[in-house]
């Protein structure tokens, strides 16, 4: 059958497809009606919005042809090098379409000849392996992977050093224990995960598929499928590997697939077999051909190849390939040739998870870690210098010192020589002190941080206030290591469609043949029953109901008068890629029509057409069946401009340009039939959310493809803009004028700043009140600004504005804008979030994903704030906790002839950071809350604490270090002096120091805990009790020299007085400083906490509202 291929329209909402400028409509020739060819222009023109459609209170988005890529998907390209800079973003579009597949970059596949295909190049087989290890490789490989962490290497080096006999400070067991413990826990976790992966791999690999072997179809296990083989798949089967379609059950070569496993989208997508291969039946006439395609890559929306078949060269694109994991629907069978198998399939390549990132707090923390390393080196140097001086001074007497044994005078002969020489001796002492003071660098902190992040993520995910009932989706936390960044966000870049809006398109109004039908009163109730079509005594009804305009409805039914209306709706019903699905209902006679398609706009239009009596009933690639007012019409798809189109679409060089040429040839002398207005409602709570974000001092950037006026009105309705704001609008057509307006705007914003700055000295400290300047800039201006020297000016200006609205921006410009901020503000590391409404692809590429835009507010203001506050405190506390212990050890070394003896038993030294003090800080890091949810949401300004880095900064670090110094001095010297000139033995005073430090450290934490739940109580007091038990157990073992020491010690009053004295004395400075700061220089958080406790939040609120009046958006 000589079929006509429809020209493909890439779905406007498919991210990552190239924006080819051909909006070539399907061309129809009705068979049963005498209507002429309808040049349908409907719905494809964004430059002609119908201004009469009331834009408020909803966003009415005119179905725009420039696809609004969502932001996240743009950023997902970060994985591709070179594409990420602001430079280069624009040129990408061209480079891709003009790219020729070089032979060396290409993959050659001989169709139906797996042997030859795999002969030269060994392509991956189709068995997949998500499991990392086998039984044999587990041990070495897992260890290898674990030691990729610097922390473990540090552990290991220390442990190895300790094994050298002259450096052996701790026993072998004691020094290896912490490392072994951590390794074991991680290994067990990894092994379990891997075992589960292996199980699912086994199931996958053993599934069966029908493969052509020796010209006969046979069942074959998935894992045995090879590239080049021809595979047949029946309806509802899953595709085993990435395949190029050869033919389908549909005579025109259409196949419908569901990609829910791949990107989560449940609507059907159409894929096409090439006409050249359609008629071939592989098991009868032998197909031979050569497919030349690109190397395996992650882009699931892109594919470029060509196929040589029957001496002809055919181009293959993303619409010709079906991917592993998708399901065949509505098509009884398809036949395809495997091109990528196993690990090389796009699904598997995309399986690698989110790349790891480092939070801003952690980056800052690393600076302090370096400082701590310097402290460590300093301590060790002090010890070794002192030891060196000591050895020098007593050089002559070393002979007689029993412990150096330079001369053994008991026997009168020099038999042993225990002195390694001055230099070596000092060097050993240095290394030994590194071993003893090793926990100065808080390695356990990294492990604690990971545990805390897991805990925080658990609470974020379980938060019912971030649960979207409509889509039954919870908050998703895909990147685990940047939780605390959520508390320090400075910029929010947001797309409009699907992010701010629901992405549920609804047909609202239309203008047909120059007549606007939008002001008619829609009779929602009466007419909403909608239209239904009768087929074989069965009723077909569209699944969704659309409000209809009675006037339009009347016109569409009347023959002559409403000819244009008739044509208009016919075009709506016909010119699209929607596939109608018939769904059975409980009523035997009633069936529902479910319109499936990739574009929600098209869906809305088809449903609208159906409501006016133009019901799309069937679509194949060859014909369309439309029920027009009860009459069944069948339309065949015409081939049009085929030769030139095909030349263009198979071209490997300049494909886009050629296609553009074809488009311009087709799109001439068109009559505008009408325009449709589609409404996409703002998501619930968006204005409030944006207002909260603004008040929190977060700069909100909205990037939209709408034109300026529309964008501004959306800005008002979403409370992005308020009447109080000064608007700076930049829309220029040349670089010079851009420069000038940027400079003017900068001067103006500076003026505004000084006016407001005179009143407030703490400029920049609270973002919300500093400036209320809104920058509105359009895509044309951005073309002149991005990638030029004007970028700096734009950044300067933008950083002074609290709101930036970019209108008429192309998708690639959006990436450029984000890259600009990233480049200018180095501290900014993007954390991506995706909103459920944008489709799952956004979710796949994001770090955090949520169902609704408004969840951003609790995420940032509540969880982000908590996470940041917890993590910041935890880092400082861990520094303190380890340093105080190290310093106590250090002070003691000064009293042991600098020989690194520890009074504290080695087991206590080892258990200190593993057991004695680890749990409470993790619990507090997960559970503590400085403020309740209500207060944080009510007063978004409290978010400023994170932006101003109030919880973790250099000043606090140094204060902590000074506090640590004082506390260690008290903890060490109070017992030392109290037991001076006494019979105290090393083990006893060691036990006292152990207990003193552990109690001190836990009391310190207790003093800073804000919210005491029973878990906090249990962990803090439990740790102290556990420590006591451990000390008792260690002292109850006769093989240690400290046998029974603690019991003797506990009988004396002096011991108890020392403990109490240390706990109180060490805390006094910290407590006093805390007290005076809280009382006389309270932070916002402190005041809010007091208000929360004493319930005077209401007056609080009154004052606050005065400061930030909310104006109703002006209506136009």
């Amino acid at each position, binding site marked *: 059958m000589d079929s006509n291929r429809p020209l493909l329209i890439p779905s406007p909402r498919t991210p990552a497809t190239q924006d080819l400028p051909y909006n070539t409509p399907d061309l129809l020739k009705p068979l049963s009606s005498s209507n002429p060819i309808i040049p349908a222009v409907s719905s494809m023109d964004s430059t002609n919005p119908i201004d009469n459609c009331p834009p408020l209170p909803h966003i009415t988005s005119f179905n725009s042809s420039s696809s609004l890529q969502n932001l996240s998907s743009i950023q997902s390209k970060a994985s591709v090098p070179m594409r990420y800079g602001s430079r280069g973003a624009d040129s990408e579009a061209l480079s891709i379409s003009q790219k020729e597949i070089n032979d060396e970059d290409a993959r050659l596949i001989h169709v139906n000849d797996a042997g030859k295909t795999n002969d030269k190049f060994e392509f991956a087989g189709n068995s997949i392996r998500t499991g990392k290890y086998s039984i044999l490789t587990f041990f070495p490989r897992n260890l290898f992977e674990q030691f990729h962490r610097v922390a473990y290497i540090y552990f290991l080096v220390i442990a190895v050093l300790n094994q050298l006999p002259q450096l052996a400070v701790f026993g072998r067991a004691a020094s290896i224990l912490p490392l072994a413990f951590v390794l074991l826990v991680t290994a067990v976790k990894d092994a379990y995960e891997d075992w589960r992966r292996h199980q699912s791999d086994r199931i996958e690999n053993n599934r069966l598929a029908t493969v052509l072997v020796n010209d006969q179809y046979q069942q074959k296990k998935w894992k045995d499928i090879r590239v080049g083989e021809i595979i047949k798949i029946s309806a509802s089967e899953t595709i085993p590997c990435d395949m190029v379609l050869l033919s389908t059950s549909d005579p025109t070569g259409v196949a419908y697939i569901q990609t829910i496993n791949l990107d989560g989208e449940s609507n059907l997508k159409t894929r096409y077999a090439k006409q050249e291969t359609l008629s071939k039946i592989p098991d009868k006439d032998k197909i031979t051909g050569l497919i030349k395609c690109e190397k395996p890559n992650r882009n699931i929306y892109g594919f470029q190849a060509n196929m040589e078949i029957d001496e002809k060269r055919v181009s293959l694109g993303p619409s010709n390939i079906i991917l592993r994991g998708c399901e065949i629907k509505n098509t009884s069978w398809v036949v395809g040739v495997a091109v990528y198998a196993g690990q090389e399939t796009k699904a598997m390549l995309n399986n690698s998870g989110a790349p790891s990132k480092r939070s801003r707090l952690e980056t800052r923390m690393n600076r302090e870690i370096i400082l701590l390393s310097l402290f460590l080196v300093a301590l060790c140097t002090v010890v070794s210098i002192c030891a060196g001086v000591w050895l020098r001074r007593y050089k002559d007497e070393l002979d007689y010192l029993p412990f150096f044994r330079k001369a053994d005078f008991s026997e009168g002969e020099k038999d042993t020589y225990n002195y390694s020489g001055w230099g070596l001796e000092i060097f050993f002492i240095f290394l030994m002190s590194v071993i003893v003071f090793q926990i100065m660098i808080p390695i356990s902190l990294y492990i604690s941080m990971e545990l805390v992040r897991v805990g925080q993520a658990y609470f974020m995910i379980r938060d019912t206030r971030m649960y979207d009932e409509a889509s039954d989706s919870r908050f998703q936390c895909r990147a685990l290591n940047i939780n605390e960044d959520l508390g320090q966000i400075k910029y929010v870049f947001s797309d409009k469609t699907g992010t701010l809006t629901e992405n549920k398109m609804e047909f609202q109004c239309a203008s047909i043949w120059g007549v606007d039908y939008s002001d008619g009163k829609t009779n929602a109730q009466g007419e909403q029953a909608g239209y239904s079509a009768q087929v074989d005594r069965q009723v077909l009804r569209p699944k969704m109901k659309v409000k209809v305009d009675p006037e339009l409805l009347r016109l569409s039914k009347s023959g002559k008068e409403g000819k244009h209306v008739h044509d208009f709706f016919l075009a709506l019903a016909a010119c699209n890629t929607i596939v109608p699905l018939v769904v059975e209902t409980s009523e035997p006679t009633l069936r529902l029509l479910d319109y499936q398609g990739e574009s929600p706009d098209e869906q809305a239009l088809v449903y609208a057409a159906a409501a006016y009596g133009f019901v799309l009933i069937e679509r194949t690639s060859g014909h369309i069946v439309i029920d027009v007012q009860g009459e069944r019409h069948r339309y065949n798809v015409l081939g049009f401009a085929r030769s030139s189109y095909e030349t263009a679409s198979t071209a490997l060089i300049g494909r886009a340009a050629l296609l553009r040429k074809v488009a311009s040839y087709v799109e001439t002398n068109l009559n505008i039939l009408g325009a449709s207005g589609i409404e996409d409602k703002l998501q619930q709570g968006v204005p409030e959310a944006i207002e909260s974000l603004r008040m929190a001092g977060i700069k909100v950037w909205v990037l939209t493809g709408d034109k300026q006026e529309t964008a501004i009105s959306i800005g008002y309705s979403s409370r992005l803009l308020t009447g109080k704001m000064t608007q700076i609008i930049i829309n220029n057509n040349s670089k010079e004028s851009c420069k000038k307006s940027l400079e003017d705007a900068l001067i103006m914003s500076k003026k505004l700043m000084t006016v407001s700055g005179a009143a407030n000295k703490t400029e920049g400290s609270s973002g919300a009140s500093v400036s209320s300047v809104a920058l509105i800039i359009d895509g044309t201006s951005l073309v002149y600004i991005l990638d030029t020297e004007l970028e700096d000016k734009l950044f300067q200006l933008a950083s002074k504005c609290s709101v930036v609205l970019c209108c008429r921006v192309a998708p690639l410009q959006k990436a450029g804008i984000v890259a600009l901020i990233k480049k200018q503000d180095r501290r900014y590391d993007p954390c991506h979030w995706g909103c459920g409404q944008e489709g799952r692809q956004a979710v796949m590429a994001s770090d955090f994903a949520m169902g609704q835009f408004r969840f951003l507010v609790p995420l940032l203001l509540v969880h982000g704030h908590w996470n940041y506050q917890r993590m910041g405190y935890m880092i400082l506390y861990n520094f303190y906790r380890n340093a105080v212990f190290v310093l106590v050890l250090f002070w003691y070394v000064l009293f042991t002839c600098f020989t690194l003896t520890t009074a504290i038993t080695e087991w206590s030294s080892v258990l200190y950071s593993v057991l004695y003090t680890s749990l409470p800080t993790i619990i507090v890091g997960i559970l503590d809350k400085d403020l309740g949810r209500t207060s944080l949401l009510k007063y978004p300004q409290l978010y400023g604490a994170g932006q101003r880095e109030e919880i973790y900064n250099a000043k606090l670090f140094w204060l902590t270090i000074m506090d640590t110094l004082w506390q260690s001095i008290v903890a060490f010297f109070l017992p030392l002096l109290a037991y001076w000139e006494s019979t105290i033995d090393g083990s006893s005073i060691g036990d006292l120091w152990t207990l003193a430090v552990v109690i001190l450290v836990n009391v310190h934490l207790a003093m800073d805990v804000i919210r005491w739940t*029973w878990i906090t109580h249990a962990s803090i007091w439990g740790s102290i009790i556990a420590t006591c038990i451990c000390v008792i157990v260690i002292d109850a073992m006769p093989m240690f020299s400290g046998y029974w020491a603690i019991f003797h010690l506990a009988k004396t009053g002096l011991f108890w007085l020392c403990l109490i004295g240390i706990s109180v004395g060490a805390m006094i400075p910290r407590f006093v400083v805390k007290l005076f*700061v809280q*009382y006389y220089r309270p932070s916002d958080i402190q005041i809010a906490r007091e208000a929360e406790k004493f319930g005077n939040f209401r007056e609080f609120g009154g004052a606050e509202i005065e400061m930030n009046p909310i104006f109703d958006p002006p209506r136009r």
Partner: protein
Amino acid sequence: MSLLVVTSNSRFTQQELPACKPILTPGWVITAFIFIGIIFIPIGLASLFASENVVEIADRYDEDCVPSIYASDMLAYIRSSQTNKSCTKSLTVPKKMKNPIYVYYQLDNFYQNHRRLWEEVEFSLLLVSVFPDMSKSRSDKQLRSKANEFETKDCSPEATFLVSNKEMPIVPCGLIAWSMFNDTYGFSLNDKAIQVNKKGIAWKSDREYKFGSDVYPKKFQSGVIGGAKLDENIPLSQQEDLIVWMRTAALPKFRKLYGKIEVDLEANEKITVVIQNNYNTYSFGGKKTLILSTTSWIGGKNDFLGIAYLTFGGLCLFMVISFIFLYVVRPRPLGDPSYLSWNRNPDGLFAQLRCRFLSDILCAMEEF
């Protein structure tokens, strides 16, 4: 019941567990400071008082007990087997001392905590032979039971001796035991000897569990002039001087119990002490002091703890007074919204003026 579980579970996941949120209100602060002050000052006074009541006689004898002709070469004196090591000293009792009176010897600049003396790590690697100075100095296993007599690998160089080409362990082995203190003291009052009870000076736990009753000294300190001797017929568990010595001191200046005098000594009585000055501290400049001391609940004579408690208590009281003063001068209502940064900005200047008016110290603290 299940309802309860559900609610508590969701309360947990929503982070709404019932919680106590203490806030430092002026009332709490003042109470806490006063409370600490009230507790600490009496304790400090009591400690000082107890320490004051301890009567202590200290007599450093290492230099005095060397005859003047050896003053330039004390080492020769102490290392010679020919010299007379006994030395008589006279002590005056300053105040009445009630029994028991503890007799200690105090060593100074003696690093019993030197790591080469104080090791209990139980492994040796190849490198030991290359760097023999990493010898371990004691074997707790050997001390405990006869069965472990040969556990001397940590004791080098004082580990073994050769008997007809057979390595036999030294018991107790190691440098700590080897360096055992061996001066002796004899006390008399008006030519009447005062008994020094040397029973029970070591910990009971050490005597019973740590030092075996079946372990007898062997070849200990043989051939060393002036070295300590242990009676090879008495098991280690009864060698209390050794047990005391083996409990290594924490600090380079330490005391160890020598014995107990179980009679009262009256004020101004003169006691004569005959010291056998055997122990060599001269080689490393160590000092030896004889101590006679009573005890109190706080231990020996040491004012430090009392002073520390008085200081902390006094500091708290000072803080409470200054806080009350500041509170009266510049009260801040808790939770007052006008202090919020976004409300405070307009009168930031005023706030700074007030700050200057108060005190520079406060300003500095407020910076934090």
